[in-house]
């Protein structure tokens, strides 16, 4: 019967549904985009720069220099040790601070020696090339497009890199083989060369880090735990997860969810009040009718519950419709991404990647459900109570 009641005044009902719908949609989208942005930033770092996790020597985190790198024996041991893991790729890197000199300027860079073949299975670096081509031989170097512009360097030209290493310094010429797009903001000041060249320069034969990429969908948390287990026998070796590699990220991510709560509450209350308002009127309107029902023996509680049910039904429909729309949008954005080129400069300043993918998680429905819950609660508060308190005789007379 509650259902029939609703459709007696279709416009009103639709409005109520819309209210709840909009509320649910907004909550879903808020969460989806907010998580999406964080996820995109995280993904940018993982997919293009750092890999899912890294293995480094113990003192490296405090003093990231070549001296605190892994010796070549250690490197071999680590790679052997991790052989049992299911990974998408493993690669060695040797990174050191160096000066990059062009005819028009000099700048400090992070010189990253990579294994050109293995690297692509971990960070897909070859897909970021925007000019020239990927590394395919010794003596070549890749620069970010930002750095190349700053130092006025073109593909094919020669640059000189001065690096300091365990054995002293070396200045060495590299030919710029290609330029890459710095998909993560850290990559802007990174110059990439074959690891053997960097080893020759620094006189260090090992690696400063071993980067590992996990297959799609694998749990990073579990993988890190497994890696730690596998490498437990090796001393002086540390597994660094995303938060170890990005210390500020932990703080930023922690703040995000908390900030959402007031919004969710406010939206829920708004929607709740909207629905309850209307429900209240409907009770007032139907005073006479309800009074009759009561006189006919319908208990107060039942009456109140009927009103409550109406409100809840409305909320439920709104929730499904609005939430569905919102979720659909998120699913689309999660697959196709949202190109943020129109705020390119601002985005870069804040650290946003160029394209963000929304996050579409089931949990968001739970958050949006709070709209329904609060609506129900608010509705229970005054409309249902009012219905409850109706005295049959007065009701019939009043109406």
């Amino acid at each position, binding site marked *: 019967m509650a259902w029939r009641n609703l459709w007696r005044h279709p416009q009103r009902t639709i409005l109520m549904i819309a*209210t709840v719908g*909009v509320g649910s949609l907004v909550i879903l989208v808020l969460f989806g985009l907010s998580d999406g942005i964080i996820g995109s930033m995280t993904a940018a770092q993982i997919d293009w720069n750092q890999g899912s996790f890294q293995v480094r020597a113990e003192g490296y985190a405090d003093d990231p220099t070549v001296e605190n790198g892994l010796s070549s024996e250690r490197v071999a041991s680590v790679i052997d040790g991790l052989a049992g893991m299911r990974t998408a790729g493993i690669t060695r890197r040797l990174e050191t601070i160096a000066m990059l000199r062009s005819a*028009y300027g000099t700048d400090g860079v992070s010189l990253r020696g990579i294994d050109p073949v293995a690297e692509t299975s971990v960070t897909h670096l070859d897909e970021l090339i925007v000019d020239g081509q990927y590394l395919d031989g010794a003596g070549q170097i890749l620069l970010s497009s930002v750095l190349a512009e700053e130092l006025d360097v073109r593909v094919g030209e020669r640059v000189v890199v001065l690096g300091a290493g365990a054995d002293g310094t070396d200045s060495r010429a590299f030919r710029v083989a290609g330029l890459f797009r710095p998909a993560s903001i850290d990559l802007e000041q990174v110059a990439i060369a074959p690891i053997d060249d960097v080893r020759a320069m620094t006189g260090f034969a090992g690696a400063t880090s071993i980067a590992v990429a996990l297959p799609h969908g694998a749990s990073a948390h579990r993988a890190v735990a497994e890696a730690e287990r596998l490498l437990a026998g090796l001393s002086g070796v540390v597994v660094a997860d995303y938060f170890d590699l990005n210390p500020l990220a932990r*703080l*930023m991510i*922690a703040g995000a969810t908390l900030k959402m709560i*007031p919004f969710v509450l406010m*939206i829920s209350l*708004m929607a709740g009040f909207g629905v309850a308002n209307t429900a*209240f009127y409907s009770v007032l309107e139907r005073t006479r009718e309800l009074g009759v029902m009561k006189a006919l023996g319908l208990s107060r509680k039942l009456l109140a519950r009927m009103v409550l049910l109406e409100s809840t039904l409305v909320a439920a429909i709104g929730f499904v419709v609005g939430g569905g729309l919102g979720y659909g949008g998120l699913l689309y954005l999660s697959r196709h991404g949202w190109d943020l080129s129109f705020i390119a400069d601002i985005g870069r300043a804040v650290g946003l990647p160029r394209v963000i993918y929304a996050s579409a998680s089931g949990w968001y429905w739970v958050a949006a459900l709070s709209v329904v819950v609060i609506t129900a609660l608010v509705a229970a508060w005054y409309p249902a109570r009012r219905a409850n308190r109706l005295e049959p005789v007065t009701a019939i007379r009043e109406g």
Partner: protein
Amino acid sequence: MKAAIRHMMRNRRRSILTLLAVLIPIYFLIVMFGFINSMMQDMFDSATRFDTGHLQIRAVETRATGSAMPLIRDPADALAALASVEGIEWSTVRLDLPAMASVGDRTRTVFVRGVVPEAIDPISNMAERVVDGEFLTRESTGVVVGEELAALLELEVGDEMVLLGAHPEASLGAMRAPIVGVFEAPEATIGRTVVMTSLGTARRLARSDAAATSIVLRIDGVTGPWDTARLDQVAAALRAALPPGYEVKDWLDLIPFVAGYLNILTPLLLIMAAVFFGLGALVVVNTLYLSVMERTREIGLILALGSSRARVMGMVLTEAGIITLAGAFYGALVGVGIVLIVEAFGGIPLWGQAAEWMKEIGISPVLHMSVRWTQVALSAGAMAGVAMLAAWLPAWRASKLEPMEAMRYVE
């Protein structure tokens, strides 16, 4: 008009609820503004207090200097120009340069920041970050280093380090400097590289009596991140007064992160406002519609008696208008009231991870609120406008009623 009021009074409860529908979005929005304003204000304060100021005067970069800022050989002419420009609350000269810090045969590349200690002390939070020893004093030839650097060079307060200035445009200056304090850095890189010295010491490292890299200014009347008009005004005056070879940068140029945040926040806020207003409007339409329905017979009667449709619309709109105005007024009142109350209690203290993050980036972990009159007016006005727009639909429907049918209307 009188009829409208009468009708309203008869259905006091419903009128009040409609009023609430207008009131609540307004007060919510004001509260939101309150939090966001305060947060942005904090970020702005924290960034501009020490690091950037509101404006900076720097030398124009004519040749690549790497990580060092172009050197101003003698800022006297710039300082003279300053005197002629109005609105500058405070200014100080700074010299930042790359240098080598060495203990025994351990040398590290560092970044020396030469400041005038007593000038920045009242406004900077650097002094608060000192965990061991003390901050600089005017005569100090000592340095304050980060915890990480102290650990790497195995230094304690009282030890000495050798500093060699390495600015590409300056001569080499070397000196021995005692560590007078150790500070806690928000980020490890800062703790490893920043060395705070007095301006005099930095100048010795650059082997110049007068060199500087920037003049940091605070402008009168610029209190928050939205005071750009005043900022631009003074910046323009400065540019006109300064001799060639200098450029003026504002804090937005110098900390693109905060600028970017602001730029993103404004549209976000607008979207949130739109959502709230939309919801409120929906509710207004809802309840007003009910009100119209209730008076269907009455309206039918009025129309039959010869009233114009416009008059009917006017009736509904008047009712809506009164409620809207009241809602706007009380909404603003409640909103501002909440802000004032929260502030009277000193703000809402935060806890846990969020609090840690805020402390790290220099914001105190207490949630304050502050709101500006323009924002209050805007919120109230916008919602009132939206509500009136929303009221149009039921009013129009009311005017379209057929008198005969309406009079016979039974609920």
